[in-house]
């Protein structure tokens, strides 16, 4: 997950000027979206068909205190291979047990490698996407209603909002 605002395209080829390298225009804040722990970067595997994308994003949105949009990067596995970044399957810690199997750790290793990864993401604006809050709201309501995500695992303010939506979508008993 990222914050798209931090990755906004800056002018790398100013009109009539010399091209500026990505390193000189990319904001330092982008690295807060690439937080590593023991040199590993936590990511999620998305199938080529994108069949599991909505479930993964819903599980991530379920971690927040309120309904929110989710900004994310969809990076091709070939890019990681080209950067020689190893990927290992590890159990995720999302509130959706079925989603946790898709969790992966990227072995970043060095600051230089993290910079290379940031440069790849920065130079490919089409990889940076947004799932709107409204869409995630309905996905989360479905996930909780069908029992895929346990209501009790949601943080209190989000749980209250989800409960409100579920009860308002129930048909009122006929007299």
């Amino acid at each position, binding site marked *: 997950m990222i914050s*798209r605002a931090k990755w*906004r*395209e800056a002018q790398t080829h100013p009109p009539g000027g010399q091209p500026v390298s990505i390193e000189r225009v990319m904001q330092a804040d982008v690295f807060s979206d690439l937080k590593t722990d023991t040199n590993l970067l936590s990511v999620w595997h998305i199938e080529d068909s994108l069949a599991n994308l909505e479930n993964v994003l819903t599980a991530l949105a379920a971690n927040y205190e309120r*309904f929110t*949009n989710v900004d994310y990067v969809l990076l091709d596995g070939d890019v990681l291979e080209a950067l020689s970044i190893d990927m290992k399957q590890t159990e995720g810690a999302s509130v959706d047990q079925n989603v946790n199997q898709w969790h992966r750790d990227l072995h970043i290793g060095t600051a230089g490698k993290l910079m290379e990864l940031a440069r790849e993401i920065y130079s490919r604006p089409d990889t940076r996407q947004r799932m*709107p809050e*409204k869409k995630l709201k309905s996905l989360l309501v479905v996930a909780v209603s069908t029992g895929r995500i346990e209501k009790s695992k949601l943080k209190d303010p989000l749980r209250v909002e989800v409960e409100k939506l579920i009860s308002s979508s129930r048909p009122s008993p006929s007299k």
Partner: protein
Amino acid sequence: MRLIELLGNSAVEVVASVILRGKANPTVAAEALKWIGHIDQAKSYAFRLWLLEESLRSPFAIVRDAALLGVASLDDQHSIPAINDAISRETCPELREDLNQVLMQLDPQCHLYSE
């Protein structure tokens, strides 16, 4: 944001003057705008919607982005003209794409106009 929930319009007025005069750090203003879209309070609704729409004119992309998230959160069709204006001004391609996404959300028929 607790302050807005307690004081309503007078608190929004203070936040608005700080944000719209460019007195706030853009990152802080952006965070405030995101929350302003999530406050559940009828009495400050119109003022909050106005502040979010005005913030779409910010010189800072991060503030415009947050204002857009706030507008999307309120999900009010009255924002359609403001979104259309913002699309015509927007120079950042990614943000223009996001504006179009919100326009589609507020007015699912909008794509028919251009066909």
